[in-house]
């Protein structure tokens, strides 16, 4: 029988011993925001190329966590480890270590990957709405899950579009193509699609890199609003975006987590010189 990952009734195991390869700092634990994802000593490789080295990190629940670092530093690889998107890459494998979602090892043999991805949604760099209507973009995932009640579907579509701050802009043209929306609207449609299946976590891989400043501001506003209900992990190359949107920030370099701390600490007085040199633009 496969585990339905992240269900509230799943009991978390006893906490492991403190890892010995921690970054220079870790955000303080908070009872308001306990760790929803725990990564311990994760080593990950694409073929023979090691992409992540001994990464240990705890993602706080209902907070926005930003991953920053130069290209190739492993931040997107780690993000994709959270919903096993790396399974789709030839030769990609976890060499050692673990990723736990609410105490369950998501790489365990019994894990239902589809259920995992329902709990851990994803929004990509380039918006990728289905070539269907706005309505169907949202309802599709729900119908696959077996929801057939039209009224219930209507409710969920509206709720999701409202949640993605898109409802007012599209309510009069729900049955027109999603591809007819602007880039920023398409990205918010993808966020609406992700939240329709009621995930616990939303992963965002450079969600604003293809958007203009106004559309970016709307998505950032949305990220801020969504954290009341969801845990958000966002990969970004935009330092100011990480500073504006996130509560905690992890800086990665050459596959290692160099520093992980409160965002205001990282952007005002980071503990590690490499972090400071990167965010001030001295390298990377």
């Amino acid at each position: 029988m496969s585990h339905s990952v992240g269900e509230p009734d799943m009991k978390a195991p006893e906490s492991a011993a403190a890892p010995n390869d921690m970054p220079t700092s870790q955000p303080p634990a908070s009872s308001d925001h306990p760790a929803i994802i725990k990564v311990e000593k994760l080593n990950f490789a694409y073929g023979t190329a090691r992409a992540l080295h001994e990464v240990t990190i705890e993602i706080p629940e209902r907070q926005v966590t930003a991953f920053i670092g130069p290209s190739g530093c492993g931040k997107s690889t780690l993000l994709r480890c959270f919903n096993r998107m790396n399974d789709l890459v030839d030769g990609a494998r976890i060499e050692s270590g673990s990723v736990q979602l609410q105490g369950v090892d998501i790489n365990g043999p019994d894990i239902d990957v589809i259920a995992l991805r329902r709990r851990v949604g994803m929004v990509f760099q380039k918006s990728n709405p289905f070539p269907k209507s706005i309505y169907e973009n949202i309802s599709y995932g729900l119908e696959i899950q077996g929801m057939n009640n039209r009224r219930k579907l209507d409710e969920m579509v509206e709720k999701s579009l409202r949640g993605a701050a898109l409802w007012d802009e599209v309510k009069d043209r729900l049955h027109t193509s999603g591809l007819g929306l602007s880039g920023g609207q398409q990205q918010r449609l993808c966020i609406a699609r992700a939240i329709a299946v009621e995930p616990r976590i939303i992963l965002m891989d450079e969600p604003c890199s293809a958007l203009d400043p106004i559309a970016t501001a709307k998505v950032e506003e949305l990220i801020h609003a969504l954290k009341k209900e969801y845990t958000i992990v966002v990969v970004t190359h935009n330092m100011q975006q990480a500073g504006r949107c996130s509560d905690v920030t992890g800086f990665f370099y050459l596959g290692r987590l160099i520093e992980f701390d409160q965002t205001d600490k990282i952007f005002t007085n980071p503990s590690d010189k490499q972090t400071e040199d990167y965010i001030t633009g001295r390298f990377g």
Partner: protein
Amino acid sequence: MTFWELQLNDIREQLLMMSGLTEKVFSTAIRALVERDDKLADAVESEDDQIDQLEVQIDERVVTFISTHGAVARDCRFVLMASKISSNLERIADEATTIARRSRELNTEPLLKPLIDIPIMADTAQEMLRDCITAFVDMNPELAIEIIARDKTVDSIHKMLVTELTALMIESPRAVTRALNLMRVAKSIERVADHATNIAEEVHYLSRGLDIRYNQGLKGR
């Protein structure tokens, strides 16, 4: 060096130039008082304008840097503190101007009393200012903390002087004008030490990222 590092360097160089000029005008103001020399007092006033202009220029560069580069971490601390330090330097120069003006007035009458405590007070304030510049150049937070501790010496001499000058005014109404001028000079020197203390706190924050104003951040040291 990248172009934005050059911009930061420009701000730093202007701040150092302003520090040097401020130290000079304060020193000149004290000499104008002690040596009873009106020409030195005039020189102080003429240099004050240049210091005002430097403050404006530094602020312009800081605003430009923040607007165009979105400064973070040590760069953010640097530009913010550069603006605050330049503001304190400009106020020190204003106090020097006040001392120079009062000196000219004092020079029109015989000395009320030998100047002993005021030069001691001024030496301490001047040393604080000079060490602030050293702490800034060396990014030395320990020296910044030492500077802050010296402010109490200046405060205690100031308090003593006020008591002494008040007694002189009670004793002799003819001493009132000169005593009031000396009191204002003493107050200006005391304010210079306060501004130097502010700069030391700013240098500490700049170098260590720890705000020690109002004794916060020093607890448990």
